[in-house]
C-alpha cells in the first residue's frame, strides 16, 4: 500500500486525479555522515521548490531520526548497508518511503513515542537518548511500517496544509 492509498483510506474519498508532482530518489550507504549530507542536499533542493520552511524542518527532522535508526539499529549487526529514500511532493503532501535491508523492527511494529518528564528527574537520570520515536510520531501526519521479505519499509506523509505544532 502506498502512502497515497493510505491517505485515501483515511479520508474515505475516491483517489483524486494525481496532480503533477515532483519526485526524488536517492540511494546511499547507512552511516551518520552520509545521512547528514543527504539531508542537507534534500533541504536545499526542497527550499528551491518553495516549500514552507517549517514543514521542511519537520521533514528533515523526521528523516534524520528514521535514517539514524536504520544506521544505529537495523544495520547495527552488520556495520552498514544501503538505504533508499523515495520522496514525492504532490497534492499538498510530502510523501516519503525509506527502505533498508537490515534487521526488522522489534516485534514487527513501529516503536511508540517515549515521553519524559525531565522536570521531575534528578540531573544524573536525565535521558541522553530515546527521543527519536516521539519526534517521528509528532512530525508525521501519516506513518506506516511494513516488513517486506528482507526489507524494512517505513512510509510517512506530511500534510503541507496541516497546522504545525
Amino acid at each position, binding site marked *: 500500500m502506498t502512502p497515497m492509498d493510505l491517505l485515501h483510506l483515511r479520508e474515505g474519498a475516491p483517489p483524486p486525479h494525481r496532480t503533477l508532482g515532483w519526485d526524488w530518489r536517492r540511494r546511499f550507504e547507512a552511516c551518520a555522515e552520509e545521512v*547528514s549530507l543527504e539531508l542537507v542536499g534534500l533541504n536545499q533542493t526542497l527550499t528551491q521548490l518553495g516549500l514552507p520552511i517549517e514543514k521542511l*524542518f519537520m521533514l528533515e527532522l523526521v528523516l534524520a531520526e528514521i535514517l539514524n535508526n536504520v544506521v544505529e539499529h537495523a544495520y547495527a549487526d552488520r556495520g552498514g548497508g544501503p538505504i533508499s529514500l523515495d520522496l514525492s511532493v504532490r497534492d499538498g503532501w510530502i510523501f516519503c518511503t525509506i527502505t533498508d535491508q537490515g534487521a526488522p523492527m522489534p516485534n514487527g511494529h513501529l516503536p511508540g513515542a517515549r515521553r*519524559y518528564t*525531565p522536570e521531575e528527574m534528578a*540531573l544524573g537520570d536525565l535521558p*541522553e537518548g530515546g527521543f*527519536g520515536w516521539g*519526534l517521528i510520531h*509528532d512530525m508525521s501526519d501519516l506513518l506506516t511500517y511494513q516488513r517486506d521479505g528482507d526489507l524494512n519499509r517505513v512510509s510517512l506523509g506530511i500534510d503541507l496544509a496541516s497546522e504545525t505544532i
Partner: protein
Amino acid sequence: MEITFEEKQTVAVLHVVPDRIDASVAIQFKDSFRDLIRDWSGPVVLDLQNVVFLDSSGLGAVVAARKLLGAERPLILSGLSPAVDKVMRLTRMNAVFPIHANVDDALATHGNASAA
C-alpha cells in the same frame, strides 16, 4: 567540532560554530565541550545561534554536556533557532535549561556584568 570559548568574567560562553548538531557530530560535540569546560568552575552559556538543525542525537549530546557540568555549574542555552526551540519543546527538555534569546540576555541574568 569547533566550539569557541569566551570568558565573560565569571561566565564561560561557548559558541558552537557549525550550523548542525546531529548524529554525525554528536560525539565530537561532547568531546569538545568536555575539553573546554574541564578547568572552568563557573556557569556556562552555550550559544547556539549558528545552529539551524538539532536532532535527537544532538539533543542527547547537549543533555550529556549538562550532566558533565554537574549540579554546581549551570548550563544556560542562548540563541535557539525556531527549529532547535521546537525540538527542545517537543521533548520537554526545555524544562532542564535556562533559555535566553541571546548571549547578552543570558549574561544579564546569569553573569555579574552589571556589578562591573
